[in-house]
């Protein structure tokens, strides 16, 4: 067992066992909603999986982003998740086990972020599932506009906007739609959402014990990734209004939204930024959209995809048509969220 680095402001035991102990706690707490299908607890499915005749939807990714990824497994949401170490992809085997466990014969859709390790392992898992005659399709989230300029959309990373892909595809699957239909919705969701964020401080990996990079005392980084990937602009910390302005106008430049259109807005805290500040940002985002005659159909404000205790937030905007609007209003319930 490794020693706890005592200058780390973390409530943990052995830094190497953070994920195992987190999962143990989670399963003790939510045994009515989730079950583990591997002895290492790295593959979790909703308690009623496989859900008869339904297309199975799975995800996976590194730990340290709660409620992402496992927080989205539940009724009206995802069927299963493979859980990696902090900021590390789960293994193909763990993904394959999830795919098997949620498969009902209707096929399985894998939804995950566009990160090398996750893509490689999910591709591998799909190949293996294919050898067992399980139909697997994938849609990779690419909502982070800061990670690659326009034109390189398919190389962008997936961040908080992934929530919408999960939500909408899951609602469609819950209605009994086919794998093709559910995949179409996931692709449409991904094509209709854009995210951009700002980080004011880094986070500390438990195994490392100190921040893996630094942001100066009076600085922030626009567009930094959720693992600390470099952003598009470093600079002095700006006001909430000017940050909101930068994020929203970058999003609207990348994905123009017409007057009269409906959107859903997601204000996501990265970990240490208080809810109070998310509402201050929402205020400005609301005014900006209202000024442009854009209708906010609904909004999600809170922590949806974190980076441990990073200070910062992101704004996601989802363009809604009638089909997506109907799906976004569907209820769901996981140990972390519920919508009636």
């Amino acid at each position, binding site marked *: 067992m490794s020693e706890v680095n005592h200058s780390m402001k973390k409530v943990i035991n052995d830094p190497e066992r953070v994920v195992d102990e987190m999962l143990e706690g989670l399963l003790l707490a939510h045994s009515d909603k989730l079950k583990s299908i591997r002895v290492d607890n790295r593959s979790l499915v909703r308690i009623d999986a496989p859900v008869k005749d339904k297309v199975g939807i799975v995800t996976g990714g590194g730990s340290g982003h709660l409620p992402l990824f496992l927080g989205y497994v539940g009724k009206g949401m995802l069927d299963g998740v493979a859980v990696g170490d902090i900021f590390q*992809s*789960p*293994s*193909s*085997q*763990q993904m394959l086990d999830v795919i098997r466990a949620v498969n009902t014969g209707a096929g399985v859709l894998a939804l995950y972020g566009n990160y*090398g*390790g996750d*893509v*490689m*392992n999910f*591709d*591998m898992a799909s*190949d*293996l599932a294919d050898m067992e005659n399980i139909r697997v399709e994938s849609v990779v989230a690419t909502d982070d506009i800061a990670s690659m300029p326009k034109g390189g959309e398919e190389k962008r990373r997936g961040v908080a906007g992934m929530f919408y892909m999960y939500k909408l595809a899951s609602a469609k699957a819950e209605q009994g739609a086919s794998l093709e239909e559910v995949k179409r919705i996931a692709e449409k969701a991904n094509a209709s959402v854009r995210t951009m964020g700002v980080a004011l401080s880094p986070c500390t990996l438990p*195994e490392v014990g100190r921040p*893996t990079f630094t942001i100066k005392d009076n600085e922030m980084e626009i567009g930094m990734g959720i693992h*600390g990937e470099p952003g598009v602009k470093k600079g002095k910390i700006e006001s909430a209004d000017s940050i909101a302005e930068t994020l929203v106008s970058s999003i609207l430049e990348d994905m123009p939204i017409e007057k009269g259109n409906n959107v859903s807005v997601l204000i996501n805290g990265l970990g240490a930024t208080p809810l109070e500040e998310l509402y201050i940002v929402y205020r400005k985002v609301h005014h900006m959209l209202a000024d442009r005659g854009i209708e906010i159909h609904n909004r999600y404000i809170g922590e949806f995809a974190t980076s441990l205790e990073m200070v910062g937030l992101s704004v996601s905007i989802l363009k809604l048509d009638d089909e997506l609007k109907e799906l976004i209003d569907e209820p769901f319930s996981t140990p972390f969220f519920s919508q009636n």
Partner: protein
Amino acid sequence: MTMKFTAKDLLTYLKNVVEVMEENKDYLCELDRKLGDGDHGVTMSIGWQAINEKLQDELKDEEDCGRICITTGRTFLSAVGSSVGPLYATGFLRGAKVVQNKTEVTGEDVKEFWIAFIEGIKERGQAEVGDKTMVDTLQPALESLKELQSTEDFVEGFAKVVAAAKTGMESTKDLLSKRGRSSRLGERSIGNQDPGATSAYLILETFHQTITANQTV
């Protein structure tokens, strides 16, 4: 490219890799400590020890080269969680298709096996030459393999493949990492040889040693 390579030889080769990985466990970890999380030697050891168990057990009398490769790939994959799991597993699974249902293969088959092996890894990992990964070892090897003439001696020809792989492996020292864990180090990654490039070289080099020994016997 006359060469006779049997399922028995394949099993011997795999056993040899098991040994080589055990011998190089600390060395690979040391390389990974400078660039990543220091576990590459342990990872390779875990994967190949798992394969070793299969070699002593269900593969002991296996005569189908394809099935040997499939079991090797799958075993490696389920034993290993890190990046190299799907990479090497894909290599063996793709190679398996070339040699399936064969108890004995020709030099031509072996060439095609390694081409499929390397192309599988490239496809899986999407790394490019210069990214400071095992692809820097494997790409020159692939090019050298493709140039092998059906007229030349396979063992001699494969020596050139290994030499190209070695040059590729050594080139990773001066590269800036762009893939996997070590990419986080940025500039600091320069100056150290990539662990995956090293284990990939060992895999090819051990194959050369195996066929050389085979020939001299």
